[in-house]
């Protein structure tokens, strides 16, 4: 029977803490770029201008149907050959997860926008609003409220997916765990602790998202999945 020894892990807790911070950093930055990009993709896909909508649809479907790990490898190993950039694990991570999550956010936005009654567009149009005014003032404020649960679910998925960056040697929590496991020869303790950290963090976000969903449901607004 194995003798548990968490001391070795706790001695190097700062390593894991750094990893955790980096995990959150990648998630936050991917959200920061991914959400607006997702909105742009959604609007393009909804556009009546066929070429634009076809291109947007292709980008969305492509990034939804290819594995994120393949995308990450592509941006990390292949992109620098195509264009002259100094690729770092950090940049590859941000680029990959911004675009990857934007494809999913685009579908959330599109679903939200399409769920708004056509009459709302007409009501806005009738008082002289332009397309962008209608979108900004009338449609999005209503759509966003309905999108919140799907949006939070997607963000949690993103947080989980960021573990992949460890494979291109970005020092996220997963990478630090691998590092520490090798250093201490205590993989059981290290990986169990790290799994626990992920669990606590993601479980807390999930519970928060469920709570928000309940509040939205109470306020009488339908939500979208």
């Amino acid at each position: 029977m194995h003798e548990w020894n968490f001391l070795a892990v706790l001695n190097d807790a700062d390593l894991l803490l750094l990893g955790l911070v980096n995990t959150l950093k990648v998630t936050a930055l991917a959200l920061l770029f991914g959400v607006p990009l997702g909105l742009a993709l959604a609007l393009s896909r909804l556009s009546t201008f066929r070429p634009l909508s076809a291109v947007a649809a292709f980008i969305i479907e492509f990034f939804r149907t290819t594995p994120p790990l393949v995308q990450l490898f592509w941006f990390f190993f292949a992109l620098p050959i195509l264009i002259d950039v100094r690729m770092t694990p950090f940049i590859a991570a941000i680029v990959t997860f911004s675009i990857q999550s934007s494809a999913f956010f685009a579908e959330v936005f599109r679903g939200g926008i399409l769920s708004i009654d056509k009459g709302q567009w007409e009501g806005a149009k009738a008082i002289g609003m332009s397309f962008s005014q209608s979108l900004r003032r009338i449609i999005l404020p209503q759509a966003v409220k309905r999108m919140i649960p799907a949006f939070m679910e997607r963000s949690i998925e993103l947080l989980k997916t960021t573990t992949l960056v460890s494979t291109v040697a970005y020092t996220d929590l997963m990478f630090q765990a691998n590092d520490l496991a090798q250093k201490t020869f205590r993989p059981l303790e290290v990986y169990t602790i790290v799994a626990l950290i992920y669990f606590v963090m993601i479980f807390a976000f999930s519970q928060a998202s469920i709570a928000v969903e309940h509040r939205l449901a109470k306020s009488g607004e339908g939500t979208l999945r």
Partner: protein
Amino acid sequence: MNQANTEIVKVENLHKSFGDLDVLRGIDMTVRGGETVVLLGSSGSGKSTLLRCINFMEMPSEGRVYLHGEAVGKERNGKIRYSERDLCALRTRIGMVFQHFNLFPHMTVLQNVMEGQVTVLKRGKSEAAETARRQLDRVGLAEKAEEYPARLSGGQKQRVAIARALAMDPDVMLFDEVTSALDPELVGEVLKTMRQLAEEGMTMIVVTHELGFAYHVANRVLFLNEGAILEQGAPHDVLKNPESTRMREFLEGHSLFKLPD
């Protein structure tokens, strides 16, 4: 309104088709200041489409629309082009009220009535609020200013929608079957508001099935059939002595309505 009798809206040879379906087949119509014109016709006659072409909620397939004698859109190479910016500006001068209200549910009644003024006309907040309260008072809903639309009855919602359109100071108001979605007991309050507007001299084009309103309030009634104007004239002529069989059949379909002698 001191634009009485001047031409406000003119429609010339208006056509509209959806794919193979010709909904409007050459409509000519002029509406003068202070006039209330009621468009009648069975469903599919094109009356709502005509109304929606006047403020370009639908794009006409052919023909021109004039506001104050000025043609909307620019003709180039035999085709008429409409810029989105011009159409937005045009719509601020033409108010529209819908069958399903289309109030903005995420805004209070007051915000609904202020929205167009602030976002489109760029009026200041306090001026817009003042105008909004005045218009809400006009439709008898001043005390509902802070409520959200979800808490109003259908009739109240529709009166807010009227106030929202009025707040833009439009030259003409379009009413698209505004009582059709209402419970019967709520129809009266909306018609009363519309009648009051007509009496105040507002220029109005009204699509409705309420023959009583047409008879008592309209200056002129137009009967549309298969995308064309079949009969028009003063309500007591058209409604009491219809010339065409189609119009007679249409009126008989509304047999619940008894015209006073």
